[in-house]
């Protein structure tokens, strides 16, 4: 949505500046006001167009969005080409809005954009509760009267307003990235909406700042390298690149939802399961030599060494007389696993599974069941003493 609306702002800018050209006001500040007004109006018009296309034209949503975006942009380019041939000076004002440029901004820009941003922040702070209710559960919020009916349309107006603020610095084409990248980055670090909002604002701020610094630095660097070209990098792409590198970084490395954190968790779980399998094997035989261990537990050799070493350090295994045997601590732990395994087998046969098939699921469940689940299970099964294969189930006392 943000993408379509920011593209729709482009003809607004062009028309606004063209109007300004007709009035022959050459000042940047005058053209700025017209550009802002035009962008705002055209974005709103684009919003209405999408709704109309979906409702009256019975179009699928994505097609309506795309059609509006392309058509508005085409109209913008049409007027722009007129402006280019008739008023080249004003055309250069418009070109800035394509990829953004902050070098030519003045105090006047700062005041206007700052004021608009303050309006948006103020609205978010005042209407935080209703907005939250509306976005999580539309039906609840409207039936409970938490969110007034005009809130939804009003928040769209604010969306448009934020686009109007952004296009001068980031450009109409990449503006949608500014809605997405900081939000994705912020989402990775928290589950609370208020925290996410502040974080997203912070990420946006940082990417804006760093992007600008980078583009200025690179531009000066380039102008030293190629003095005759008068190169200057547009700020928009730099800002977006910084923003999306924040997003990708967060996606990879955030502690809770990041990919690396997830991989580490999966590996840890796998290692724990293997560890428990070794304990079980030792428990069943009373002791195990290394070669036996290799035969029963199929693991990569270094992993097996590491696990055995780790369990010795935890004080669960001891190495004596060429065999591994369990310490009291290890016995307790192993017995618990066997108990879970056999409990689950009993449970499954209770449910009506054939006895010869319950072993495999129990192999998995023994690593997952928690003590609370264990208690519930044994209570529900009336404290069984034997599993379906006539093997004794270790008592809880054994390992307490």
């Amino acid at each position: 949505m943000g993408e379509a609306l920011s593209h729709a702002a482009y003809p607004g800018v062009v028309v606004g500046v063209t109007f300004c050209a007709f009035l022959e006001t050459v000042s940047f500040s005058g053209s700025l006001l017209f550009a802002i007004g035009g962008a705002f109006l055209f974005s709103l018009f684009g919003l209405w167009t999408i709704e109309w296309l979906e409702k009256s034209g019975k179009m699928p949503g994505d097609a309506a969005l795309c059609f509006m975006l392309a058509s508005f942009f085409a109209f913008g380019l049409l007027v722009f080409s007129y402006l280019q041939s008739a008023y080249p000076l004003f055309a250069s004002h418009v070109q800035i809005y394509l990829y953004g440029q902050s070098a030519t901004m003045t105090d006047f820009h700062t005041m206007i954009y700052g004021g608009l941003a303050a309006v948006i922040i103020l609205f978010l702070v005042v209407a935080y509760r209703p907005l939250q209710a509306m976005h999580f559960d539309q039906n609840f919020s409207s039936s409970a009267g938490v969110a007034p009916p005009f809130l939804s349309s009003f928040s769209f107006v604010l969306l448009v307003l934020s686009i109007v603020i952004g296009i001068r610095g980031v450009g109409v084409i990449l503006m949608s990235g500014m809605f997405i990248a900081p939000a994705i980055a912020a989402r990775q670090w928290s589950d609370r909406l208020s925290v996410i909002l502040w974080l997203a604002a912070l990420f946006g701020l940082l990417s804006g700042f760093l992007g600008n610094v980078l583009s200025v630095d690179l531009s000066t660097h380039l102008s030293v390298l190629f003095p005759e070209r008068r190169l200057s990098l547009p700020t928009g792409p730099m800002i977006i690149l910084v923003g999306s590198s924040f997003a990708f970084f967060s996606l990879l490395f955030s502690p809770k939802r990041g990919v690396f954190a997830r991989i580490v968790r999966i590996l840890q779980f796998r290692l724990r399961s293997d560890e428990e399998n070794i304990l079980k094997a030792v428990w069943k035989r009373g002791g195990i030599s290394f070669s036996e261990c290799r035969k029963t537990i199929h693991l990569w050799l270094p992993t097996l060494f590491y696990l055995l070493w780790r369990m010795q350090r935890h004080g669960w295994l001891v190495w004596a007389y060429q065999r591994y045997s369990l310490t009291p601590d290890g016995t307790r732990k192993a017995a618990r696993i066997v108990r879970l395994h056999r409990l689950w087998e009993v449970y499954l046969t209770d449910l009506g599974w054939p006895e010869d098939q319950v072993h495999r699921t129990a192999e998995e469940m023994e690593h997952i069941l928690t003590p609370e689940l264990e208690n519930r299970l044994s209570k529900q099964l009336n404290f069984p003493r034997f599993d379906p294969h006539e093997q004794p189930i270790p008592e809880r006392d054994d390992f307490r």
Partner: protein
Amino acid sequence: MIFVSRAVSPYWDNNFWEFFATLGKRLMHMACDSGPLAFDELQLMVLICIAIACGLLGPLLVLKRMVMLANSLSHTILLGLAISFLVSSALFRTAGFDMTHLFFGALIAALLTVLMTSALTAVFHLQEDASVGLVFSTLFALGIITVTLFTRDVHLSVEVVMGNVDALKREDLQLAGYLALVNMLFVFIFYWPLQFSSFDRFLAASMGVRCGFIHTALLFLVAASCVGAFRAVGVLLVLSFLVGPYLTARLFFHRLWQLLIATPLIGVGAALLGVALARHLLTVFDMALSTGAIVATLIAVFYPIAYIIKISFQKRVIE
């Protein structure tokens, strides 16, 4: 240079109607002996080829709900092209726009976009629209920076979005012609599989249609069409050509084969009118407007006109 060629152009000083008269006369002539193409004719033919190429893919895209993907593809081909240019100029010291760039640029862009988008949704558990948005804005930003840095030309990055119909050459026509031809062959050969897979994937799969292959081929062709069109109309207006004519055709036709015929025709009509209108505006009002933008705007304007026609027609039927 341009002005000289315009002055000797047979369309010089023509208005809207005279344009068509001249065009008809020249077409008659061309049947006897083929002279050099006038500039307007070159524009016209390139735009017609693009309209045909895009018009054939448009219905399939909308029916298969791949419009947003096409949207992001139309942006990311910039990076694909930039990479293919860099590699070729570094390895083979060739510069120029030809079939290989078209092919590899489209391939790189399509691969990058689709792989990254699906990786973001599958591995990182992002919502689909968010991952599409993130990928396309990142890749487009990279593309813009690469183009600016390596061509050392600020205007090129603006031209990329606007397109530049005035700088078209014979090779562009060749390219667009091939594209139209390939797309036509694709739709013609795979008509049944395409029809099944765009309306009912599961039925198609059960009937032995390889949906994955069709999907991939379609994506690649969309990327190729975007690349082929971007010199003439820029990266964004391609979308207009892809989606707009189909939406208009959809008001009147409801069978896939009708749509596949009507959609390119509407595009071609817009191209004809657009080029004539551009010439008319230049002659009568002395306004040099971008032809690509005029055609795209015409495509947009067709929709409300068609809508009004349809509504009034319906009313008459009801009465």
